[in-house]
């Protein structure tokens, strides 16, 4: 466990020190390290492919629940990976027609729809759970309703004072909340970073069935 901790500390200090001290050699090394690290990050491209392959491959092998869907998943994953391979001289790559077809007609609509479905759940939640049960809930309800109404031209065209109220909510309690949380989070992030540098925080190194 010691080598990774030393690597973490070294890499972190290599980024922090040149920002505060003008040492050209370390500055150059820091810049090269940033670019070099991006190569390492991009090499992780097949981790997701292998992980999904393992989970769904096992399901197919054991004919587990919904295993035909796992076949579909792996088929689409492999097909997308193959047609996107950067071999433009044989017609593959991310400007390949099949790749663009999959992006425009499958990934694009699915991605947009997955997130938009939450609109229905938020509406159902607004009806079933958004109650002014106490003063705090009333505060959420009132400010939420004002902001919802002020985002709709239907209301703001006939009740322009809603925009003024929304601006006040945005500028005062919302900013205050955001600022307080941000300052607290920044202190927490600094503390976590220092703990990681010192080797006290080791959570990111867990796994592999050891210790």
């Amino acid at each position: 466990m010691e080598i990774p901790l030393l690597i973490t500390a070294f890499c972190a200090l290599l980024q922090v020190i040149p920002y505060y001290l003008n040492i050209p050699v370390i500055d150059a090394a820091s810049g090269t390290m940033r670019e070099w690290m991006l190569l390492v990050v991009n090499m992780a491209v097949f981790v997701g492919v292998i992980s999904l392959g393992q989970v769904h491959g096992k399901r197919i092998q054991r004919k587990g629940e919904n295993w035909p869907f796992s076949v579909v998943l792996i088929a689409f994953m492999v097909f997308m990976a193959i047609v996107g391979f950067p071999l433009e001289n044989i017609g593959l790559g991310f400007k390949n027609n099949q790749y663009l077809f999959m992006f425009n007609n499958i990934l694009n609509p699915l991605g947009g729809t997955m997130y938009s479905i939450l609109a229905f759940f938020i509406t159902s939640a607004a009806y079933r759970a958004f109650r002014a049960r106490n003063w705090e809930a009333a505060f959420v309800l009132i400010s939420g309703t004002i902001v919802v109404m002020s985002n709709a031209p239907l209301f703001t065209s006939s009740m322009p004072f809603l925009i003024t109220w929304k601006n006040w909510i945005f500028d005062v309690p919302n900013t205050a909340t955001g600022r307080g949380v941000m300052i607290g989070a920044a202190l927490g992030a600094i503390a976590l970073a220092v703990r990681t540098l010192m080797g006290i925080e080791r959570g990111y190194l867990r796994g592999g069935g050891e210790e």
Partner: protein
Amino acid sequence: MIPMWELIGVWTAVLMTLAIYSFLYGENPWYRLAEHIFAGVSVGYAVAFNLDYLRDQWVNKWSLSGTLVLLYMIAIFFGILWYARFSKKYFFAYRWTLAIIVGTGIGMALRTVIFTQFLNQIMAQARLSLWVPGDLLQSFSNTMIAIMVPCVLLYFWFTGPARDRGPMKYIEKFARYTMMAGFGAAFGYTVLTRYSLFIGRAQFLLGITPNPPEARMAFYVIAAAILITLFAKDHLFKKT
């Protein structure tokens, strides 16, 4: 008339969209199918861009000198160690690569987070004028922010029994009301985002420009087909 491949693409996109929305009726095979396709395509999609970047970097930079070639090979070595996570015996090697990424990331964030998310915010707070001549509302607002921010901070710093003692009783209550008003605003904007996304999909389904107009017919046909299958499945199960 649009080319056949484009028409097939439009019908595929409508099918994918409505298959996800069929979840609103209840869990069903259409939704499962679309969900699995999405997972597969999302993962396969990124392969193209990542490999293209590695190839471009090699051609344009890292192949240009002996030292850079050596560094690139070392990067490949550490990159291969990512896959040690799938082995119990060699899992320790995966930690080396992870340590490089985590360490560099921490260093990148640590060096300026103290300015962007701490000092700049403190300075903005300190710059607030509690009295703005001629503008009572602004004076009131600035005073409120000047009180609210420390209250919110103290709320998070003093937890448990510390909140029930002395002035913390009142600070805690004031902070909660501040945050509730802020969260209400967050709810309001969340409604806007989710409905904007749904409206965008609805504009596509209805073939509203610049979306292809052929989508509307596909919407009617596929929606009817999915609804019929869902009602039939529901009705048949109920009968049996």
